[in-house]
């Protein structure tokens, strides 16, 4: 089976470009040009230099010995948390900013939930000297103050979004509306493998550096390029798409996608789209989507601001439906426990998003002779307030 995008922009039955005519010229321009621009030697050279000297790649593939001992298997952490700005998000924004410049765009827009993608976009806009406007749900601007301040320090304009539920999906709506109103000079840097074709494929290609490096590094360390498991958390799905990319066609690799169960899949406060979603259309893509019976999009919940998206990238919908990837849902409580565990076992404070992937280690039952690669998508600095509040409340409840 083919897990990549087909020439119509679909992954199995998912994907496509369900967009109003007002967006068609922008999206079509991108669709026609993204592959040829990305394949230009000069583009690749510029991208590789920036990834090395600016982002800090390759990121280490770290054999976490104490964690391995705890789970009685061999665990490697792919250290995306060590990237500039603290997460994998910048792999995508560095690529897209170079692309935007080649398309002659003067103005960059982005959406952000937790603020990680917003910071990564503001960063590359400063680097490229381009105007940057970031849409962020008003509720998120209040929850994630430090990231708002960082974006402003980097020279970006942060626009609090007051429409709808005032969170990530509404920030995305507002960015799309901005793009409709600026059809010529603006590029939209979407933050995950979501949106209309070609975005899911383009973002996955920019993130695929993660699995390209894993193969090389694993060969050096283990004498084989292929692990037994690759584990990653899924919000929209970009870090997972990058970590899975070069293993999709390796049938012996078990791909594990970890979603946020929130308070529990059946509690009505969850973000486990692969379980709770039905096929629908969100932000221009046909995919699995959390919605009411009437087709109104519902608001997901997770303690992690980066995982509470009501949809999932169309490729992940395909991986879930075809069974190529195993989807696991992890609750807030289990993720926070895993966060503390990694901090104390390895001296690494992970992002709450990445902690969901860590919490899945107890579910997969990997054997002592097996190799597990876990994509540590980001660091926990941005989450310090949430982490402290969570554990304080937990201690108080005891």
């Amino acid at each position, binding site marked *: 089976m083919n897990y990549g995008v087909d020439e119509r922009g679909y992954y199995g039955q998912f994907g496509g470009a369900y967009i109003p005519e007002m967006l*068609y010229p922008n999206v079509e321009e991108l669709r026609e040009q993204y592959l040829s621009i990305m394949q230009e030697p000069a583009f690749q050279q510029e991208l590789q230099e920036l990834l090395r000297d600016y982002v800090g790649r390759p990121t280490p593939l770290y054999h976490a010995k104490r964690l391995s001992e705890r789970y009685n298997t061999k665990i490697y952490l792919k250290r995306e948390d060590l990237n500039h700005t603290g997460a994998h998000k910048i792999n995508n924004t560095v690529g897209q900013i170079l692309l935007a410049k080649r398309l002659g765009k003067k103005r960059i827009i982005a959406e952000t939930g937790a603020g990680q993608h917003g910071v990564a976009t503001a960063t590359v806009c400063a680097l490229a000297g381009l105007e940057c406007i970031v849409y962020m749900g008003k509720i998120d601007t209040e929850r994630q103050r430090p990231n708002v301040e960082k974006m402003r320090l980097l020279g970006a304009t942060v626009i609090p979004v007051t429409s709808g539920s005032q969170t990530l999906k509404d920030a995305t709506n507002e960015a799309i509306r901005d793009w409709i109103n600026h059809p010529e000079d603006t590029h939209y840097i979407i933050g995950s493998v979501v949106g209309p074709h070609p975005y899911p494929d383009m973002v996955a290609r920019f993130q695929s550096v993660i699995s390209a490096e894993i193969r090389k590094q694993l060969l050096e360390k283990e004498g084989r390029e292929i692990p037994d498991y690759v584990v990653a958390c899924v919000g929209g799905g970009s870090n997972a798409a990058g970590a899975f990319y070069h293993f999709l066609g390796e049938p012996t690799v078990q791909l594990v996608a970890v979603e946020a169960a929130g308070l529990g899949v059946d509690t009505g406060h969850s973000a486990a789209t692969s379980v709770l979603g039905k096929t629908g259309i969100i932000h221009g893509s046909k995919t699995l989507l959390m919605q009411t019976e009437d087709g109104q999009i519902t608001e997901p919940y997770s303690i992690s601001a980066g995982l509470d998206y009501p949809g999932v990238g169309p490729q992940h919908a395909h991986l879930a439906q075809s069974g190529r990837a195993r989807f696991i849902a992890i609750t807030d409580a289990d993720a926070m426990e895993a966060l503390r565990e990694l901090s104390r076992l390895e001296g690494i404070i992970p992002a709450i998003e990445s902690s969901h992937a860590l919490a899945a280690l107890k579910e997969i039952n990997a054997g002592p002779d097996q190799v597990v690669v876990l994509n540590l998508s980001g660091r926990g600095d941005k989450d310090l307030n949430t982490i402290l509040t969570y554990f304080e409340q937990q201690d108080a409840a005891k």
Partner: protein
Amino acid sequence: MPQNRLTRLFQEKSGNLLNIYFTAGYPKLDDTVTILEELEAAGADLVEIGMPFSDPLADGPTIQASNQVALENGMSIRKLMAQLQGVRERVSLPIILMGYLNPVMQYGFERFCQDAAAVGVDGFILPDLPFAEYEEEYKPILEKYGLSLIFLITPQTSEARIRQIDALSSSFIYMVSSASTTGSQVQTNEGQQAYFSKVKGLGLRNPLLIGFGISDRPSFELACQSAHGAIIGSAFIKALQQPAEVRENVRSFLKTLR
């Protein structure tokens, strides 16, 4: 099957067509048919009934807010179809349902067409339904129920694509006045006039109605110089927010136009 009301309208009337958009279930859940009756009495030529959606991507603040209120009022496609039962005994102007694809998909596309045709709807505007998918999957179903699908064009739409849209259209083409979401204040400028006359000069087989940013008599009349008529949405929604009773609000707004 009786001749499509849309086709007949364009045969009978060649210009100054007034198309009014309003959101189903707004301002009150049960206002839908009342508004239809008043619009017909006050001289609208056709109407677009918006089916509210939680995430209306192509709409500006006014229509977004009306969508949200309508959903809070309990509007849904199911409810709208129930309200439209028997509407053809009361109004005869062409009715178009406008909305985003997701709620329609969940209702079931064929069932949607069947129910809409049964209550006397004439066509749909589904702005996020792509072309290729329309041709392959949706067109045969629409044709089976005698329904038109109306496509949009914008100042950025290429001539080749406009011709493709013209070939696929069977009632009229919705000409978006400028690159914008609904309700933006459109300043008429030379670029826009050039776009209007360019499209007018293409000799398309379908009539054109201009929409987005048409809000009052001057903008309506100006649009009618370049097309067969125009569409008013956000300005009408704002008129419905006036303190008077809903019928009175419809009548006084239409009086300012004609």
